[in-house]
């Protein structure tokens, strides 16, 4: 995922010399976080993953329209929501496991 370098982008609206606007990629598209958003939606719960998907849609459509700055901003937003979702998911999981370990130990002692 580190292979995309947003700073290498051509200035707004310019095509790099010798590349066609169609077909090959003129400038690298900013990371759209789509795969990560799907994973967060499926495994971490809720609105954050979906916010990631919406922003991924913005990255792809703005990039396709040539709005590289907009795509860049949408990429940052997608990344933000996906990370929030990911860490919330991890947080809930860890809290739940801690809670269960405490409860389980108590229960095991009671059942002796």
């Amino acid at each position, binding site marked *: 995922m580190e292979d995309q370098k947003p700073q290498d982008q051509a200035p707004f609206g310019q095509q790099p010399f010798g590349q066609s606007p169609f077909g090959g990629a003129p400038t690298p598209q900013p990371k759209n976080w789509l795969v990560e958003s799907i994973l967060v939606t*499926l495994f971490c719960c809720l609105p954050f993953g979906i916010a990631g998907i919406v922003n991924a849609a913005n990255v792809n459509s703005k990039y396709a329209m040539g709005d590289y700055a907009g795509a860049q901003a949408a990429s940052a937003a997608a990344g933000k929501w996906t990370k929030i979702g990911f860490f919330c998911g991890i947080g809930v999981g860890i809290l739940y496991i801690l809670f269960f370990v405490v409860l389980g130990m108590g229960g095991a002692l009671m059942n002796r």
Partner: protein
Amino acid sequence: MKLKYILGLIIAVVLSVVYYKFNPEVYHFFPECPFHKFLHLDCPGCGSQRAINALLHLNIEKAIDYNLLLVLSIPLLLAQLSAKVYAYFTQQAIVLNFWHKPITPKIIFALVMLFWVARNIPFKPFNYLAA
């Protein structure tokens, strides 16, 4: 860089073993989705843990029953994973074009929202989608 992949691999293997050995339907130490806990409604990810357990036991039918969306997304996710693994070992980047098409995230968004609503409709045929 390498450490990240090794850690990821270890976590993936440990989680696979845990989800293979313990069926979340039976053992209750698995985290419950907060959305389901508080609202008693299914979110698009509800049933994923049970679906993973079913998939690890190669029971696709049961996995579809728990979370259709997860099963549908697996071919896409596997394609992305293989592209990344291939790129890592051959040093040649493969870009899967469909991820970058403007229509792809829109379709995914529509599917997620439809699935979310449909699986909460409490009568046939929609209740088959519930977790």
